[in-house]
């Protein structure tokens, strides 16, 4: 049975139709790379799944329950956590306090401040620092840690690498490796295709609000993903 089921989803920003009748389902344990050009609807789709954006039409089911009308915090309480683009930490609170906020939904599980610090060792010395004073990599680690503190069944990572130097991106992924292989279901947005192909088990390409490609990563060569990304070639348009 699918963990997440999105059915005929439509999302509009005013007159702009950002997501056009999109349907997709994600099964327990998958690591899905969501790939697409700027403006293709990745962030809008993820925000809608997480409850941060409203669907104009269509439904989102999580573990069989219709969550379309639920607010974001109710979705977190059901095990669906988003690491938003731009991290969105509370800058005047410490790393630990930001992490503790992730645990306020009180879901059972193994994640604790100590385990987050063990997973992201770059945060150990910074645990009492204000989030606003952190480097980009430390902020991303804190944002991921905050999401993990809710012990999510589905972890959504939007733009993992955005604004980080290549070295720092390597560090974040090195820390994420344990999470990626832990069986947690993950949807992530990563602009670096080679990296997305390494870490994900499935590729979904968005093109102007629709799915242009959806395949197991092993059957999605770089050429096919590139064609879908730009809307080129035949048979790639959904």
């Amino acid at each position: 049975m699918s963990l997440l089921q999105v059915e005929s989803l439509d999302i509009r920003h005013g007159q702009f139709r950002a997501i056009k009748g999109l349907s997709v389902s994600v099964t327990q344990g998958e690591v899905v790379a969501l790939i697409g050009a700027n403006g293709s609807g990745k962030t809008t789709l993820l925000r809608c799944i997480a409850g941060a954006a409203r669907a104009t039409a269509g439904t989102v089911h999580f573990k069989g329950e219709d969550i379309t009308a639920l607010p974001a915090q109710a979705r977190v309480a059901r095990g669906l956590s988003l690491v938003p683009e731009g991290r969105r930490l509370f800058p005047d609170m410490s790393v630990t306090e930001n992490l503790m906020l992730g645990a306020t939904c009180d879901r059972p599980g193994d994640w604790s401040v100590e385990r987050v610090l063990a997973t992201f060792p770059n945060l150990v010395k910074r645990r009492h620092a204000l989030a606003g004073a952190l480097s980009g990599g430390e902020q991303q680690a804190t944002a991921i840690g905050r999401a993990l503190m809710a012990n999510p069944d589905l972890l959504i990572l939007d733009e993992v690498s955005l604004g980080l130097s290549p070295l720092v991106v390597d560090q974040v992924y090195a820390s994420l490796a344990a999470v990626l292989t832990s069986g947690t279901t993950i949807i992530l947005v990563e602009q670096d295709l080679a990296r997305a192909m390494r870490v994900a088990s499935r590729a979904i390409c968005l093109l102007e609000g629709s799915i242009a490609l959806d395949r197991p990563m092993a059957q999605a060569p770089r050429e096919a993903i590139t064609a879908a990304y730009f809307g080129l070639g035949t048979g790639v348009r959904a």
Partner: protein
Amino acid sequence: MTILTATGIAKNFGALCVLEGIDVTITQSEAIGIVGPNGAGKSTLMAVLSGATAPTKGRVHLDSVDVTRLTAPQRAHLGLMRTHQIPKPFLGLTVFENALVGATHAGGFAGDAAHTAALAAIEAAGMTSLANRPADSLGLLDRKRLELARALASRPRILLLDEIGGGLTDAEAADLVHIIRCLHGQGIGIVWIEHIVHILLQVAQRLICMDAGRIIADGDPRAVMADPQVMRAYLGAVA
């Protein structure tokens, strides 16, 4: 034959260098597409070419005239017009009145000549049946068409289009491609920034790819899209 030339263009916003070392020559006979990932500097280049913003370094020439210090309205009088990524119609005016503003203020037409230019522009943009509709009642596609009509009413020689294809359905995009092809066929030079590559490739005879404030590829569209440097700019290096 009008030629738009930008030489040694740089643009800084504070410490942020948005454009660096841009050299580009555009002739009236061309239909040029400009692509590039987010933050590449495409819209800033368009603003520098159209006169909306002054470059930190470099010169812009229209024919042999140095227009670097001329404002956008002054460049419009010389035949260089742009449309905006987010349509900016005069909401309280009708479609015809919006086009008339383009004909009179940007095109320098008066009286019957202005009316003729406005009507022709509305027709070229496929909006004749909407001529008396207030702009604030238009949907997204029609607002984009109106951007085009208002620019056309000035009878430009070179038209700069900023992401006019976003948010359209396939059928609407096909309409837009047809309109822009017709304009190019009438001898208007087209410079079109668009992130929807497959729409752009139906019009562009030449493609420029920008990344991090620089031009990284310039030439035949298929060759540019196959350029490893272009692929790297969008999707990272091949592992």
